[in-house]
């Protein structure tokens, strides 16, 4: 197998890498680019721990080939905060104790960010169904949903 040269944009930076044809974007992020915030919980798109945003859509990076990143715009958890200033979702997850072990947290944050970009004022039901592809085994989801609701309200300027 020979490697493929890929040029892409990750978290606003131009990035070039070589990858194998069968290598997933998740493996590229973690093993070649040192972006380990995306986690592999299943490798089959069932847990959402590897969520990344590709061209504006949240996807499981374990179900994207590294080679497919060519020419795309990719966002990962490492690019969510603005320098040392956390994104409101990140802050609210900490404030609401919406994480216990935290392994699912990067994936939830990426998915929630994508939600609030298309729906700034989601209902509880909308949040729950949008996040159904992100498994959490620790929290029972209660505090996660509340954190997303609270972050959405803050981002709408309602409880600033």
């Amino acid at each position, binding site marked *: *197998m020979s490697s493929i040269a890929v040029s892409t944009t990750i978290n606003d930076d131009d990035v070039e890498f070589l990858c*194998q044809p069968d290598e997933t974007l998740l493996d590229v992020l*973690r093993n070649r680019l040192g*972006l*380990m*915030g*995306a*986690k*592999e*919980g*299943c*490798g*089959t798109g*069932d*847990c959402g*721990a590897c969520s990344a945003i590709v061209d504006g859509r949240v996807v499981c990076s374990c179900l994207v080939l590294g080679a497919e990143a060519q020419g795309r715009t990719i966002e*990962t*958890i*490492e690019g*969510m*905060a603005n320098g040392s200033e*956390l994104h409101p979702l*990140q*802050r609210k*997850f*900490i*404030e*609401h*104790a919406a*994480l*216990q*072990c*935290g*392994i*699912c*947290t*990067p994936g939830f*944050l990426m998915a929630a960010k994508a939600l609030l970009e298309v729906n700034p004022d989601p209902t*509880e*039901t909308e*949040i*729950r*169904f949008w*996040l*159904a*592809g*992100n*498994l*959490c*085994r*620790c*929290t*029972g*989801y*209660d*505090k*996660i*949903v*509340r954190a997303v609701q609270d972050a959405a309200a803050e981002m709408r300027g309602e409880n600033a």
Partner: protein
Amino acid sequence: MSFDAAYQDQKLKSVGTRPLRPDGVDKVTGRARYGADFNMPGQLVARILRSPHAHARIKSIDTNRAEAVKGVKAIITAADLPDLTNGDAGTYAILDNCMAREKAMYDGHAVAAVAAIDEHAARKALKFIEVEYEVLPHVTDVDAAMEDDAPLVKDDVFTTGVEPAPTKPSNIANRAEFGHGDVEKGFGAADVIVERSYKTEQTHQGYIEPHACVANCNSDGSAELWVCTQGHFVYRQNCADLLGLEVSKLRVTSSEIGGGFGGKTHVWAEPVALALSRKAGRPVKLVMSREEVFRASGPTSATSIDVRIGATKDGKITAAEATLRYASGPYADMWAELGAMTSFACYDLENVKTVGLEILVNRPKTTAYRAPSAPMAAFAVESAIDELAHKIDMDAVDFRIKNAASEGTKSSYGPVYGPIGIGPTLRAAKEHPHMSAPLGKNQGRGMACGFWFNFGGQTCTDLNVNADGTVTLAVGTVDVGGSRASLSLIAAEELGIEYQDIKAVIADTATLGYNDMTDGSRGTFSTSMATISAARNAITVMRERAALTWDIPVEDVYWEDGHAHAAGAKHDNRAPLSVKELAAEAGNTGGPIAGHSELVADGAGVSFATHICDIEVDPETGSSRVVRYTVIQDAGKAVHPSYVEGQYQGGAAQGIGWALNEEYIYGEDGRLQNPGFLDYRIPVCSDLPMIDTQILEIPNPNHPYGVRGVGETSIVPPLAAIANAVSNAVGVRMAHIPISPPRILAALTDAADG
């Protein structure tokens, strides 16, 4: 110095507040490092070859072709591991589970492992390892394994706990009996008796992070292990015992852990990674796939339970009896015994008898899962209790209150209870608005109680006061759900300083004394005790330093609100010295200031919870939805209430998944059919409602702040609460967990037919 663990009623400033967790930013920015997030220079990739058979004798393993694959650096089989055949049986079983020696005991059992320069080479080598199996008859069902003609999982297991000792081998590894009184006499006095058999299927802890480690063995006998574990000191001891390493030379660092729930209390692949590294002479990284996690790491027992309970018409239980069969995989443990002990622990019974039967089957080795063995027993017993309440036309909560255990009750497993919390949780449930809220169409309400033993254990902490007066707290219990925040609160409380000035870290095995695992709900209970003790020792040092500074006797220095105070007027009302001031002068008053503690945190005390749940069932499809859920549990004292609530909610969610959809499904061939999150169906966000919690605080007499472990009990009542709710919704008693849509629809169809 002896440590007084007795509860002292006092006003607490830090404990009970909800500050931000210290590891929060790392975890929301993707910087926290879990098991698979660590690499070493020159590391190899390991993969494990697993048995495709449920039960097979390994006749030979030929690794020659695989070794010839370019990039392969080491291959091991059981022959490369120490032969512990004639040693301690428990140790042998742990190693045999890591790598099968004579027989593959279940689908997924490891038979060989490869370390290679990359994933491709490792994957290729696996295909070239030739294993010759003699396939043997298998048995995977707990009841089938008990039949006389069942295939023997092991031919050298004779049932223990029965007299006279049997001469014929059996899949029943052990029988354990508990109870008191005369149950037959008790049943004779009963007006109504409920008798029913229940079944629960096997479930997995389902942590999102697969097992992962990086092992590095050096030629001088020193070794390092980076691993996600609930107990790195225990892993160190296990690996040293299994591989013949010196404990001091094996340094184990626990990564951030992506969930454990009991499943990471036990070594699975870590000894294999170390052995590969030793053979290859290079670091080895081993990460299980999700499929491997399901096929070959720690599920809990499938069970089959018979319950018989009798009561008088006015609601007094006269006798209770249960036979509990727990499948333990191919290696005997004491899961049935635990089930037998916990089954009737909520009740005050004159006549009770429980028998636990430990059953061997060709399934993965059973390991602990959050309050291990208790949820299934509670499902059976609490279902029968509910049915009995219906039969005598008594409110389910009132019936339980009337029979609840209390201080002085002789427990069903033997000892007499001290002050306990079952009564208060039941009374709280009775008064809870949930209990009286109206139900909609096709909805049913259920409630159930749960009991669990909490544990304490060996614990060691270091508390270092830094030059700027901030404090580093080094603990040895892995943080699975926010304990660094709780322990920082404890240190802040005891020292009288701000929470923000404490930084708690998890120390590795080379830098702190031994600690038991974070299991048995002991993390915060026991390490908070050691932290209090360490803080008190540091205060002693600081009082001495203040005495030196002031040149007064140490007896005249007392500690209050984070300051050393000189007692009385004779010391000219000296201005108190803060931790910061004392720390700044430490170099000239005797050197660094620290408090150390090693202790046994015993006396954790038992724990109780009551859950209430509303379920809506679609009678045409058997689909069910949890529409409301309430957890009421005694925390003793909630150190960080947000994370206590989190434990309540998380345990409830796991129990709901267990009750409704999760199960290991085996084919006729003895192979696991659903080793993935697609068909092993844990609850997703849209499956659940908000989970309400009510924290009761009945101080634990054996902890200075009254703290009680909270991690496990919350998974005990849900199976029964859901079963009771569904049964109340559809009018048919559901006795087989999971209560999946096909089971509900079949039950409804059967009921309609007749």
